[in-house]
Every structure is written in C-alpha cells, then in structure tokens.
C-alpha cells in the first residue's frame, strides 16, 4: 500500500486519495451550476408571473439555459467517474 506522508505522523494511502479526489471533483463541481440553475429558474418564474402569455417562449429558453448550466456539472461528473473507475 503506497502511503503519502503529509505530515510526519499523518499518512494517506493512494486509494484513499483517489476516492477523495473523485468525491471532491463532484462536490466542488456541482456547487456553481446549482446556483446558476436556481438563479435562472427564479428569474424565469418572475418573468412568467409578470407575463403569463409568453409561457412557451420563456419555458423553452429557460430549458435551454438550464442545459448549458447543467453541462458544467456533467463535466465534473464525468471527471469523477473517470477518476473512480478508469484510473
């Protein structure tokens, strides 16, 4: 078991570092897209409340915007899956 010594008595094995890396990739990478999607949907709801007739246009564009924001979280997920299962 390969150990990396961070401090003289604090050691972490390679396997553990790998798992921590995979988990941190997903955790940190999911933070900003969720904020972005929340802001996007809240503004869309506001616009919908102000102008219910434009529902189709607002909804379509909101879903498009959500797709762009979610793609970043998906990149983080793919990196996490690759670290966990490929390397």
């Amino acid at each position: 078991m390969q150990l990396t010594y961070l401090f003289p008595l604090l050691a972490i094995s390679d396997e553990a570092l790998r798992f921590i890396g995979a988990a941190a990739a997903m955790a940190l990478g999911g933070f900003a897209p969720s904020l972005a999607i929340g802001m996007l949907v809240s503004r869309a709801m506001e616009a919908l409340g102000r102008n219910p007739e434009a529902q189709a246009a607002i909804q379509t564009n909101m879903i498009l915007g959500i797709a762009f924001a979610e793609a970043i979280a998906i990149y983080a997920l793919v990196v996490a899956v690759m670290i966990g299962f490929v390397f």
Partner: protein
Amino acid sequence: MRRFKGLAIGLALLILVLAGFLFLRSPKPIIELKAETVISIGPFNVTNTYITSWFVIIFIALFAYAATRRMSLVPRGIQNLFEAIIEAIYNLIVRTAGEKHGRRFFPVVATIFLYVAISNWFGLLPFFATVGKVEEISAHESAFHEKGVVIQQKAGLNVIMPAADDVELPKTVTLPDGKVEEVNADSSAEVKQLAIDEAKKEAGLSEDAKIGILIPFLRSVNTDINGPLALAVWSAIFVEFWGISTYGFFRYGSKFFNFGRLLRGKIVDGVVDAFVGILELVAEAARLISFTFRLFGNILAGEILFLVVIFLLPLVGLQVVYFMELFVGAIQAFIFGMLTLVFGIMAVSAPHGEAEGH
C-alpha cells in the same frame, strides 16, 4: 379504516424495502465505462451499444413504415400518433426558427430529437444491462477483468445469483521466486492465474468455484461516448453546411477568419477582429465537446444510478430512479435538438463580416 390508509401504505413500503434488501439485492455494481465487445467479426468489434443502436434504427424505421402505408386523409391509428408527434416537433421548430428556415432545418433536428429520445427510452427496458453472457475471469487475454462476482453453473448456463459475493483481484502478486508483480490486463498468464487463485483463497472459495462478470448483450446507446460524439459531429457538420449554403463559403468563412480590416491597414481594429474570429472557431470546437459530454454524462449517470440503487434499495428506490430517467431521457433529446436548431439559426442569420458580440 380511512385513518389507517397512510399507515398501511407506510407499512407496506417498509415490508417491500426489507424484503428487497434481504432477498433480492444484486451483487455490487461493476461499472464499466467502455462499451463491452460482444463478438468480434474479423477486425471489427461489435459492441453492445452498436447492437442497440441498430435496434433503435430498425424500430424507428418500422414505426414510420407502419404509419405511412395505406395513408388516409383523416388519420387513424398509428398514422394519427405519428402525425401528432411530427406536428408537435414541427410547430416547435417553426416557432423558434421562422417559417422559411424552419422547413429547412426540420429533417435534421427532428431526426436528432426522435433518435435520442427513443434510444434513451430503450435503455429503460427491463432486459437491458441485465441479460448477457456471463464470462468467467480467466488468464486468457480477452477475459481478464479486475473485479468479479461469484458465478454458478445452472442447467448448462453460467448464472449470477442475486446477492452473489463480489470478489476483487489483488493489485500485486508475489511470484514464487520472490518478485512482486502488478496485476493488470497486460500481465503474463501466470501472474494473472496467481492473482485469480489468491483472490479465490481470500474469499474462502474452493478451487473450482468460478468468478466472472456479466457482459450485457444490450446497453443504452448513449452510454458509449461514441454515440453522442457521432451525433455532435453530425450536427456540427450540418450547422456549418447551413451557414455555407446560405452565405457562400467565403462570406461565411469571414466570420472566423476576419482579416479584412487588418489587411486594409487598421492595425488595432484588425487585430481585434482577427482575435474575435479565432475565438469563434474555438467556440465551435468547444460546442462539439459540450454536446458530447452533456448527453453522455446524463445518460451514463442514469445508468450508474440504476445499478447503485438496485444494489442498495431493490424494490422501492428503483421506481423513483425510473421516473427520473424517463424525464431526463426526454429532456436531453429536447436539448440536443433545440441546441442544434439554435446554433443553426445563429449560423444563418448572424451578419457576416461584422464583429458580433455574444
């Protein structure tokens, strides 16, 4: 009696959860990112996602054939269903792109829409990723994997029983002459055999027990990165084609290679224009990557979620994941089609030559 309805439902759920957890757990999920080869025809590896994609194509073709033979002016039956679907997609496209461009973009965008939606939903059929050939891990080159499950022989077939034990092969083995060798797919046959024997001993299995993994015959098309990559390349080719066929090669190309002002002598403006053009080119390439990974990541995440939930909460948690996967499959199809459409609109309507800020 009505007061106890909630309680009865809760109790029933609890019993289902316990029953599933005790008797029906699947072995620990072995998640494979690459699509597994089912058979090899000469130099060509037929993967399970390839087989599935052919089934999807045949299904769509048969559906279209059934809907268009003996067509009547007042549609009935399958023709009615098909017309409703096509009309919904057509209205969506024409609403976004306008009448003239909408008709031109309709075939490609509707195909992407239908193909991605049907192939995502196919992945939810019960015999996907569960029925396949059970291959024993052996020291042969093509049959070596690092993790496995205990398999049994029943009635001439290799079977993986529910709640079978999973076995992981050791990472390094010590050869009889003292050397320590790593175990991976390129190790020599005796190293692999030693690893297999050691794993069996550690798990307490007898010598003739077998470890193996499941190679499913069918797997959802977009879990293999080649599927989304092919679709993204295809849609990028069409977006460029629409731009070029509207504006001509050089006028469309001047969006990316904007050296007009530079050559005319205005240095600062010219450099800015050229730089913006290069950025546009990079944005096109980045779109390819983002299309691919968006679809691939969503569908792969769904598949991994399924496997993990089958392992943790067999009877109850699965329904929630199933519903979410239906939804996500449809949404991803919608998004892929709409993004192709939107980029097509941008390609045909952006004024060429001027620096257009996005």
